[in-house]
Every structure is written in structure tokens, then in C-alpha cells.
């Protein structure tokens, strides 16, 4: 499959398959996903809950073992690394979660929470740790002197997310996976955090995988967007192009569903009723076919492969819109 983002991508996922087994049944969470992320790029990953976005992120970080496939980070296959080499590599890759409050230990002080990755990485000098913690806390807009001694419950959701971002940056990573970092936040705080992520990306030279279920949010920060449905990729392409001319019917549905703050744009009422089927028994052929207005016989018998539909834009559909 040709999904070239750049000649020398920082992250390359090849034919990744991740499954869970629950009560004797197999959940096909991620099925044969391939992706590339260029150095300095933000790739947005969008799709409805349960489509496998978090599982993909966790498998990339080796927090969840893949059934098959490769995760090449800077040329090294993380799926085959073990012990110290894996730990070393992991330091260069960090994760930010959706629920900022739940992901902070309620009994630990902010200074210790942010310093924890340093301790784990073996930074022994307390002065050095303190200096690095102060640096990242200031970078995310918090006053180290004021916040270091406090506990998480003293902070709002937006501030907790700043703390999580600081913790993820303290080891100076190259690649950060942001898993729904703003989904739990209000409109105004969401904008602050999105801007902060952009600033941090520029300041620390980061490469980002930005996961969200809201396409408008993803578009605001991503160079390219990958759309996922029920464990498979539907479409990958440059953000603006994907918005202007979606090729996959599911991408079009996601765009259609965004609420537009303009009373003259009456809601179309054309979003088809229905929800994603179970990943335990995904539909044969194209997994989107049970909700797709263009589905025909071929769609139920043949799995559509990702193929080039326009410059830099790939879609997995037998009857693409472009």
C-alpha cells in the first residue's frame, strides 16, 4: 500500500492488527491499518467512539500488543524491541489522555506528578528534575511556584489538561499521541488547549498523532487527516482537501454532521439513522456498507483497499465520491 507522507517518516505503522478477546469472542478493534507520519507533521485520526482510535494509539506505544503488523519509529520496529532498548525508545514517544482529571493521581502533588516520568527515566538529581518540571509547567502557562505543591482536585478540567501536557513533555519527546485531549472540555477552554498544543509543537519540535471524534477540531490542528471506521481506515488526505472534496461516503457523513453556527444553514436532516455495527461481527466487504447510501452488491463481497483518488488523498471505497 502506498501511503507515502514523506521519504523518511518518523512513525510508520504497517498492516497493524489489534484484537481483544472478551468472553470467547474476538473484537476486531484495529484491522490491517497502515499509516505514516512525517517528522514535524500533525496527523489527525478521526472516527466515532469504539472505532479503534485509542487501541491504535496504545498499540503504537506498545501498551497493547498487536496480533500482527509493524510499528516503525525512526526506523526501529517497536513491536520487536524489549527491555532497555524499548524503554529508551518509549521515552521519545508520549501519550496525553482524554480525561485529564482521571489521569492524574489525586493524592500526589502536581510537582511530583509532572516529575514522575523523569524519576522513571532515571534522572537522579532532584535539582535537575525541579528545573525541568518548572520549565514545562511555565511552558504550558502554569506558575510552577503556585501549582507544584497543590493536588489535582484544586484544578479545573482545562488546567488538569495543561498539567497532563506538561507531564508528557518533561522528557523532551519527539512524538506525542494526543488521545481526545479536548473532548471533555467546553468550547472556550477547548480553544485554549488546542492553541497550547500548537505552541508546544512549535516550541519542542514535536510530531503529533491527534485523535478526536470531532472532525472540525481535528481539521483545526492537522496537516493530514485519517478517517477510521470500525477498525479500518476509510480515507487519508490533506486536511483542507479532505474537507473540500471527501472521497469516502463516511467522511462526507462526518462533515455533514458538524453543527454549523449559522441559523441560515438549516440542519439537513439527511444524516442517515443508524449506529456502527458491533466490532465482534463486522459486516463483510466494506464495514461501512450497513450505513452507506451508495452500497451495492460488490460492497458486501469485496473489502475495498485504500487507493489514490486525488493528489495525496487515499480512500477505501468501491464507489468514491471523487
Amino acid at each position, binding site marked *: 500500500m502506498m501511503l507515502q507522507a514523506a521519504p523518511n517518516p518518523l512513525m510508520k505503522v504497517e498492516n497493524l492488527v489489534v484484537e481483544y478477546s472478551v468472553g470467547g469472542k474476538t473484537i476486531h478493534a484495529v484491522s490491517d491499518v497502515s499509516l505514516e507520519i512525517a517528522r514535524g507533521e*500533525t496527523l489527525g485520526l478521526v472516527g*466515532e*467512539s469504539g472505532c479503534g482510535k485509542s487501541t491504535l494509539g496504545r498499540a503504537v506505544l506498545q501498551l497493547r500488543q498487536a496480533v500482527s503488523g509493524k510499528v516503525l519509529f525512526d526506523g526501529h520496529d517497536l513491536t520487536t524491541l524489549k527491555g532497555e532498548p524499548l524503554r529508551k525508545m518509549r521515552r521519545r514517544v508520549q501519550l496525553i489522555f482524554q480525561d485529564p482529571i482521571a489521569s492524574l493521581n489525586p493524592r500526589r502533588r502536581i510537582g511530583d506528578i509532572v516529575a514522575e516520568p523523569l524519576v522513571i527515566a532515571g534522572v537522579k538529581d532532584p535539582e535537575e528534575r525541579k528545573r525541568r518540571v518548572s520549565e514545562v509547567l511555565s511552558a504550558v502557562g502554569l506558575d510552577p511556584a503556585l501549582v507544584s505543591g497543590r493536588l489535582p482536585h484544586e484544578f*479545573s478540567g*482545562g488546567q488538569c489538561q495543561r498539567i497532563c501536557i506538561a507531564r508528557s513533555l518533561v522528557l523532551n519527546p519527539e512524538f506525542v499521541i494526543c488521545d481526545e485531549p479536548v473532548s471533555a472540555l*467546553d*468550547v*472556550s*477552554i*477547548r*480553544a*485554549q488547549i*488546542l*492553541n497550547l498544543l*500548537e505552541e508546544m509543537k512549535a516550541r519542542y519540535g514535536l510530531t503529533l498523532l491527534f485523535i478526536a*471524534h*470531532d*472532525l*472540525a*477540531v481535528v*481539521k*483545526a*490542528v*492537522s*496537516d493530514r487527516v485519517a478517517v477510521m471506521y470500525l477498525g479500518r481506515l476509510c480515507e487519508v488526505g490533506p*486536511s*483542507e482537501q479532505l*474537507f473540500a472534496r471527501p472521497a469516502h461516503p463516511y467522511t462526507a*457523513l*462526518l462533515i*455533514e*454532521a*458538524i*453543527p*454549523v*453556527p*449559522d*441559523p*441560515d*444553514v*438549516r*440542519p439537513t*436532516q439527511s*444524516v442517515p*439513522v443508524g*449506529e456502527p455495527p458491533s466490532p465482534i461481527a463486522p459486516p463483510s466487504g466494506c464495514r461501512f456498507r450497513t450505513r452507506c447510501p451508495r452500497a451495492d452488491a460488490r460492497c458486501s463481497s469485496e473489502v475495498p483497499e485504500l487507493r489514490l483518488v486525488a493528489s495525496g488523498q487515499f480512500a477505501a471505497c468501491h464507489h468514491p465520491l471523487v
Partner: protein
Amino acid sequence: MSGALLSVENAVVDLPTPRGNLRAVDHVDLEVGAGKTLGIVGESGCGKTMLSRAILQLLPKKAKLSGRVMFDGQDLTRLSAEKLRKLRGRSLAVVFQDPMTSLNPVLTIGTQLIETIVEHLELDLAQARQRSVELLAAVGIPAPEQRLTQYPHQLSGGMRQRVAIAVALSCEPQLLIADEPTTALDVTIQAQILDLLAREQQRRHMAMIIITHDLGVVAGRTDEVAVMYAGRVVERAPTPALFKQMRMPYTEALLAALPKLDVPPHTPLPAISGRPPDPTRPLKGCSFSPRCRYSAGRCSTEKPRLSPAETLEHLYACFHPIAAGGGA
């Protein structure tokens, strides 16, 4: 004021907290006409949910409500608990953000629907059952007959919210209050649920209040919008008038903070700096002044009153309103 199905008059909700009194709702006036839809918009903590609970008379025990809540000719603040309970099942319904707030986890969907219908409408069991199946079909639930025997936990979040809506609609209420009904749901499900609410509202000529933090949700789906900040209504107007010309800087800022579809990626979002004020430490002046880019002069010492703009229907509370054509 007269003729409205619901009119909230000078409502104040105070909650005692260890940090002192928390004024959750601060002198709010609102009306909703029969068959009309009102959107209430604001950030979390600005008093939207407390206001809706004040309307429903479902405030926490310690809360103190003053003012009047006139619904269909009676003041709900003076009704007995028994009368209120009847009214809430029958004429006044609510859908919460988390559908499990209104669904009982140990009862089947069928039992919950049928019980509500039998209790409030004069129907026998067979009729109530028939009615339940029709309702589940109306809210877009596939195979409604089979759902009757299922429990809420066997359904997805979107399906549960549909069931909660079916329960709310089951007694043909005159007013439905939907408090962030889609905030926990995916975008495609959100669109379906909002369409469903709009369709049922029109079909039943029911009045509706939609509470949300997203101006995009109310734009095409309400007759009137009230924007709340720090417990107060700070701007109120017919929906088209509001979006044509926002006068209150907070409303404008809420709109600006939404990601735009027509700007290139990496365009910084005009975020609202800071956070809403601590509600136990009310500010002397305009509550929005610490975050407002137009704040000047008496903004920090005096509270602006909600007063009419050019037209009587468009009200705003601001000393330096945004002028027609933009800029304050």
C-alpha cells in the same frame, strides 16, 4: 410575559457551600411560548443546569430558590410535592446529558415505558405496550418490540438517549427540557438526536428548552437563544437576530472560539482567556470583565443590566456592546 407557557420570573438560586454562599442563578427572567424552542447557551458552571432544575423544582435539598416559575398558569414553586410529581411525568419532561439519570438500570425498557404511560395516561396495559412500541420506533430504535425486554446497559449510549427521549415524550408533555442531550455522543449520533428532537417538537407542537455549550447546536434549531454567564442571562434574542448581530462580547467570544471549517489548519483559535469567576466570590462589576477585551471604565465597578437593543426582543447586558457591523 402573559401568554407564555413557561415564564421564569426573577429566579435566584443560592447554594450554601463550605466556601460560602454560591449564587448559581442570579435574577433570571425567561419565557417560552407554547410550541416554541428556546436555547440556553453557556460554559459549564454558568448556571444552566441549576436553572433547569429550578424550573423542574428538582433543586438539591440545600438550595434556596426565590422568584416565580409560572407554568401553564400555576406557580411551580408553590405546588405540593405530589402535584409536582404528577406534572413532571405528564406535562413537563426532561432529558439529561447522561440518559442513565432518568433510566432505571434494573428495569427493562418496556417496564419503564409502560409504567410511565399507565401511571399518567388512562390506558390499559395492552394499549400502553402498543404505545411504547410506537414511541421506540418514532425515536429511531430498530426492532422496537425486542427492545422492550432489554435493559438499558444492553444498549449503546446513543440508543439509551433515544430511549430516555421516548420516556420523556411518552405522556405528550407540553414542555421538554433537554439538558446537554448530545454532549456525550458522537457527532453523527448528535445530529440524529437533535433532528429527532426537532421533528417530535414540531409534530407534537411541544415547547422545548435545549441547553448546550455549543452555539452550533442551537443555531438552526431554536426560535430564541438566551446566553448565560456566571448565573445571569447576558444576552437574549430571537435566534436569527442573535446570529445576525451579537451585541454582548461573551456571545461573540463563544462563537469565535469554535473551530471554523473555512480556515486553513493551524490558524490559532480566538480562545477566551482565563476562566469564569468563582461563583462564591461574585465580582462587583460585569462578571465577564476579567476576560473581556472591551472592558473599560465602569465595567469593573458596576453590573450592566439586561436591557433592550434596537428592538425589544433583543436584550443584552453590556456597557460597551458590539456595534452594528462589528467592533465595540
